[in-house]
């Protein structure tokens, strides 16, 4: 059964070095768990594409259309002349459009975040509580015992305080 090697580090630089060494040694892309965002992760582990901006953009477009349709559509559905103004008045309806653009942009951004970060996590995933406090962890999937040995060596060489052998679900 596939297991993971998890190395705990005191500081982010060692963790990054370990991750880089693991990648050079031919392991699958390691994951870096940390209590704060680590700078320099992109250079070592490879750049990440962000799909969230597309969500925001299309959410905003949808919101603009929805906002203007709401205001102008409901004005036309029940004709209600007020104040010597036309039925479809542009300045007030532009304000409604603006607000809905931002509302749907915000909601779409949240949706994009949840989808691209794969949250909420329904099943158990690999995790140790120390990474929420002050330790930085590097985990890598090892399919054989040999690989685990190699991974352990690389992690210790980079300065790991502790190396654990965990199953897929973190036990």
């Amino acid at each position, binding site marked *: 059964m596939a297991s993971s090697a998890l190395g705990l580090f005191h500081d982010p630089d060692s963790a990054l070095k370990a991750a880089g060494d693991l990648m050079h040694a031919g392991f699958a892309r390691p994951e870096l768990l940390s209590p704060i965002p680590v700078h320099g992760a992109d250079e070592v582990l490879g750049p990440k594409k962000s799909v969230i901006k597309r969500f925001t953009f299309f959410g905003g477009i949808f919101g603009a259309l929805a906002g203007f349709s709401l205001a102008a559509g409901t*004005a*036309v559905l*029940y*004709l*209600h*002349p*007020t*104040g*010597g*103004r*036309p*039925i*479809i008045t542009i300045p007030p309806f532009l304000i409604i459009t603006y607000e809905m653009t931002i509302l749907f942009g915000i909601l779409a951004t949240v949706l994009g975040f949840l989808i691209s970060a794969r949250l909420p996590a329904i099943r158990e995933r690999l995790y140790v509580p120390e990474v929420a406090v002050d330790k930085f962890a590097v985990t890598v999937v090892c399919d054989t015992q040999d690989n685990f040995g190699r991974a352990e060596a690389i992690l210790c060489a980079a300065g790991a305080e502790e190396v654990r052998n965990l199953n897929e679900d973190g036990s």
Partner: protein
Amino acid sequence: MNIMERFISSWQKYRKPGYYEDFDYAWTMSIDLDRCTGCSACVTACQAENNIPIVGEKELAKGREMHWIRIERYWEGEYPNAKLKFIPMLCQQCDAAPCETVCPVSATYHNQDGLNTQVYNRCIGTRSCAVYCPYEVRYFNYNSHHWDSPLDQQLNPDVSVREKGVMEKCTFCIQRVRQAKDHAKDDGRRRVQEGDIQPACVQTCPSEALVFGDRKDSNSKVAKSLADPRAYHVLDELNTLPSVVYLKKVDSDG
């Protein structure tokens, strides 16, 4: 391109300011300040016709007056040269009414007769229409009212009784306008003629200072009032296009 033409004509219709191509009737009231004696008979008549609540002494002392038409009184000069001027002020039924735009629930709108209508059961009482009205002719029901017996027996069945939290104002006795239009229809689809309809205040004014009619009818008295050199609108500079025209009182000293 039937759909395209329909879309374009709809768009032009919905972009026309005020929406109406032409009013059915353009009800107008003319008030001749030369004839007005300040007797307040119009105020009493309005109270009787429209079930205006009686707010009571305590509430009136707090400033919560309730009358749809009021006689504004201004003193000029000092004794012994003091002059008294009064002007009846009621809802001007503005064609470009500032109060209509601001109601969030569409409880007030402009109808086909050029009247500014108030829908009591839709009003949620935000009171923004009263703020936006420059003439201050909108009145709010701060409390529920009751009429002491036997006044409760003289309520007009054609007019609703408003509950607390609702805004009300002069409607040009829209119940009488509706009745006149119904009679005209029964009589064979003719138009409402001059003299068929008079709101309560117009009917009661002893000096005939108040005159009511349709300004689309060029022979009506109000149409002639509009052409009078003494004619003016209150707060004209605000461009509210009121339907009430005042005829300035001509004094010996101008």
